[in-house]
C-alpha cells in the first residue's frame, strides 16, 4: 500500500473494508487510506532485519519452554475433554438484539 498511487490506496482500503465487513463513507475511505499508508510506511522498517532462520513466535509459551525458570512439561498440557455444565440457553440469548428464545434472528441472507 505505501508505494501505490492515491487511487490504488483507496481501492485497497475498499477491498480490505469489504473483507472486514466494514462500510466506510467516502471521507472515511480517504482518511483511512492516508493513515494506513503512514502506518505501513513505518512498519516497512522490519524489512531491514534478516529473519531467514528465525522461527515465527505465535505465543509466549514457546519462549517459556526455553526459559530456565519454568517447567516446560507443565506449560502445554491439554485439559481432559469432559462434558461440563455450560451457560443456560436463556442467559446466553438474553442479550440478542432479536431472537425467538431458541434461535438468533437475522435479516434474510442473500449472497453470503
Amino acid at each position, binding site marked *: *500500500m505505501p508505494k501505490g498511487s492515491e487511487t490504488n490506496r483507496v481501492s485497497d*482500503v475498499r477491498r*480490505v*473494508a469489504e*473483507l*472486514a*465487513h*466494514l*462500510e*466506510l463513507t467516502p471521507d*472515511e475511505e480517504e*482518511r*483511512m487510506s492516508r*493513515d*494506513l499508508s*503512514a*502506518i*505501513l510506511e*513505518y*512498519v*516497512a*522498517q*522490519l524489512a531491514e*532485519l534478516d*529473519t531467514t532462520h*528465525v*522461527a*515465527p*513466535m*505465535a*505465543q*509466549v*509459551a514457546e*519462549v*517459556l519452554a526455553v*526459559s530456565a*525458570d*519454568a517447567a516446560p512439561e*507443565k*506449560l502445554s*498440557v*491439554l*485439559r481432559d475433554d469432559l462434558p461440563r455444565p455450560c*451457560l443456560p440457553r436463556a*442467559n*446466553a*440469548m*438474553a*442479550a*440478542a*438484539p*432479536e431472537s425467538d428464545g431458541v434461535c*438468533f434472528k*437475522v*435479516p*434474510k*441472507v*442473500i*449472497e*453470503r
Partner: protein
Amino acid sequence: MTPTKSLTATPPSIASLRQAIAGRATTATAVTEAALARIAEADPAIHAFLSVDATLARAQAAHVDQLAAAGAPLPPLAGVPFGIKDVLTLEGAPATAGSKILEGYHPPYTCTAVKKLADAGAVFLGKLNCDEFAMGSSNENSAYGPVHNPHDPGRVPGGSSGGSAAAVASGMVTATLGTDTGGSIRQPASFCGVVGVLPTYGRVSRYGLIAFASSLDRIGPFAANVRDAATVLGVIAGHDPMDATSSPLPVPDYTADLDKGVRGMKLGVPSEYFADGLDAEVRAAIESGIEKLRAAGAEIVPISLPHTRYAIPTYYVIATAEASSNLARFDGVRYGFRAPKSDTLAAMYRRTRDLGFGAEVKRRILLGTYVLSHGYYDAYYRKAQQVRRLLADDFLAAFRQVDAILTPTAPTPAFRLGEKSDDPVAMYLADIYTVTASLAGICGISVPCGQSRSGLPIGMQILGPHFGEAAVFRVAQAVETQR
C-alpha cells in the same frame, strides 16, 4: 479520604482498612460511603467511571460488616473499595469496553479475576472508562468521552486503562483492575502517579476479558502503593480451567520479600531506552532513581536490547492482526448493538460495525485485515512474528545477566488532550518503552519516580523475567521508599 477540592488524593491502604475494619474502628459500610462521596465529588471533573452501582457496593460492604461483627476471620481484601475496567465482565453490570457496539450489554458471566476479588471481600464501586476495546494510549478513544488526568484535567490520563489509573490517583478507590496489551496499565500508571502491574503472560486468567489481542492481553492491578499492588496480584493470580494459557505454577506471597531491599541485586539499564525522543525531565528523574538504587546497594549493569527499535512496528502488526480476528464477533447477531432496518444480513453486518465502532478500532481492524490478507501475510504478519522472537530473545539473554531491568515507562509525562489524536503513528510512539515486554510475555511494573517541574508524575518501569514478579515488586518497593 478527606474532603478536598483537589482532584488528587491518596486512598486508604489495604492494610489500614483491614486493621480498622477488623478492629471495629470503622466499618466497610462507612468506607464504601466515603468512596461513593469521593466519586460524587471528584468524578464529574475526571470521568473515570462509566457506571457506579451503589446498591451492589453497599451489599458487599454489609456482608463484610456481618463477618467483622461476628468476629469471623476477614478475607484478604475485606471492605477494600475497587473499580473494574469496563473490558472485564461482572455478571449483572454493564460491560461496554468503551464502545457503542456494546452499549446496554450486560454479560451473563463474571471474569475470573473479578470473581477472585469478590471472593476475597472486595467492594465494587463500578466499571471504569477506557479506550474503545482497550485500543489507545490516551483514553480519548472511549465512545463515552475521555478521562481527565487528576494532576491536570487538561491532560490525558494515559490509556487504555485511563479510568483505572485516574480512579486511584484521585482517591476514589483503593485499587482497580486494568488490562495491558501494549502498555495499557503501565503507561497510565506513569501518567497518573500510581503503581500499575503487568503480570507475566499466563499469570492471571484472561477468562472474562473482552479480547483485543489474545497473545498479548493481560489483566493486572493498579494501586497507590507497591504493597497494595502486590497484595491484589496475589489474589487474582493462578491457574484457571477456563483459560488454557493460564499457568499452573504456584502463586508465591508477593509481599514476602518487599522489604528486603536491593542490596546485591543486579539491575540492567538498556541504552536503547535512553536514546533520542526521551523527554529531558523524564530522563533526569529516571537516572536519579537509578542512582538511588545504586546507593541502596544494587549493582547497576549497562545492557543492550538491540532489537528495541523494531518493537512498535512489530506490535502494531501482531496486535491489529489478532484484533481483526477477535472483533469479527461483533456483528449485531448475538449481543450488543444492531443497526436497524437492513434488508440483508451482509448489509446488517456492515451497517452495525460502521455505526458501532469508532475510528481507531476501524483503523486497527483494517490494518489487521490487510496484514493477514492474501499476498501480504508473509511480508507483514509472519515477518512480525519472527521479529517478536528476536525481541523475546533479547530479554532472555539480558535476564541471564541481571535480575531486573530499569527504564522510563513512557517517553514523556502526560500530554494534553487532543495533542496527538490526529496522528496515529505519533500516538503509537507513546508505547515505545512498554510494547517490548508485552511482546516477550515478561512481567513489569510502573512505579512513581519523581515529577516534572510543572508537577506531572513520572514513572519508572521495572521489568522482570517470566514469573519474576517477586523481584520486580522488591525493586519497586525500594524505588517507592527512596522517593
